[in-house]
């Protein structure tokens, strides 16, 4: 998946670069597809096509947005979970890990002693013995950055992408610190990663509860934003 993504992005960047430094005419003549691409993006200065540079750039950005959207749906299928090591990559940190911002990406490793949260400059561990309760909830999130890029690329029409919800799993980790104080961590991950998380936690004798059974923290049924997984 990542290979496809990188290849696509590199090819788009290559197209933009080639717009600035036109290739030799002989090379292009030997490649009919490349020739048509050059015409489309007006790489050939003699071309009679009237596409503007801005339009080409917009198309390139739109392609990036579409490709990244596809990559997200691929990752929902579970391809992004690396089977080699017990851990989950690129989770969304919402709150709880010291030194991490909201929505910052974090990797989670299942060590022998506890859960290990790893980001670029932060490493934080929660021992399994101190975990009191783990909830796994269904929720959704919107990708503002992607929507913003789409809106820019399509002169505002792409802003409608904000209507698209991305279903994710929310993990609410309730634990105590070394002095017995109540602490908590909230993470969001792809739905496929949620299942992996649950299996890995249960393999370490830490039970993961569904929202209906989660009475200690919430004492309430969940809302429309965070619905019961068992109903789906």
């Amino acid at each position, binding site marked *: 998946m990542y290979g496809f993504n990188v290849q696509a992005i590199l090819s788009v960047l290559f197209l933009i670069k080639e717009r600035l430094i036109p290739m030799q005419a002989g090379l292009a003549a030997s490649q009919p597809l490349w020739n048509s691409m050059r015409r489309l993006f007006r790489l050939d200065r003699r071309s009679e096509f009237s596409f503007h540079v801005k339009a080409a750039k917009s198309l390139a950005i739109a392609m990036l947005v579409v490709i990244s959207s596809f990559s997200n749906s691929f990752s929902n299928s579970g391809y992004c979970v690396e089977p080699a090591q017990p851990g989950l990559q690129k989770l969304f940190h919402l709150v709880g890990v010291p030194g991490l911002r909201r929505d910052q990406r974090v990797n989670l490793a299942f060590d022998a002693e506890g859960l290990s949260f790893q980001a670029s400059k932060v490493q934080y561990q929660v021992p399994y013995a101190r975990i009191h309760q783990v909830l796994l*909830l269904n929720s959704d999130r919107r990708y503002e950055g992607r929507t913003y890029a789409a809106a820019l690329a399509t002169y505002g029409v792409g802003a409608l992408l904000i209507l698209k919800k991305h279903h994710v799993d929310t993990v609410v980790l309730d634990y105590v610190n070394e002095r017995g104080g109540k602490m908590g961590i909230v993470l969001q991950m792809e739905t496929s990663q949620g299942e992996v998380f649950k299996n890995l936690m249960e393999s370490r004798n830490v039970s993961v509860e569904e929202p209906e059974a989660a009475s200690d923290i919430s004492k*309430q049924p*969940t809302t429309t934003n965070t619905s019961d997984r068992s109903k789906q």
Partner: protein
Amino acid sequence: MKSKFLSIAVFASAFALAASATAQQNSSTTSGNKYQYVQVNRFAVEPGLDFPPDYQLTIDEDLNKVLWKIKGIKVLREGEPLPQSEPVLVVTGTITKFKKGNQAARYLVGFGAGATVIGAHIKCFDAATKEVVLERDVDGKVIMGMMGGKSEGANNGLAKEVAKDIKEKLR
């Protein structure tokens, strides 16, 4: 040339005075407190109100984070042992109102549509005497923001308001 030097000197002295006044104010905030320790208890939810457990925990974490930034206050978690010799302010709260809101409506419609609202009733009391020091209704709202603003921002807004009230009370 002389007037330039004079104006620079005036500006520098004014800046130095302002900086020292700010520092003095900060130190008075820290030294004038009766309560050096604040214990934050996890907020309860009013019966019958649908409130997501992740939001409940987020309010607790955000409130701890914001209170840590106030100089002269040491924040204790619920369940941590209280210092015997020092007075401790215990912060409790109940979530009384929750409107989920809609980020798309906030962004595409605006004018207050799709706003996320979290309301809470907070009570701060002395841990030893149980005397109520502060009792107030607070709320956190997300009405607008980047691409409509994240709904979770309401938690942070509520935490900031609680922290502001506590800071004013302790001043």
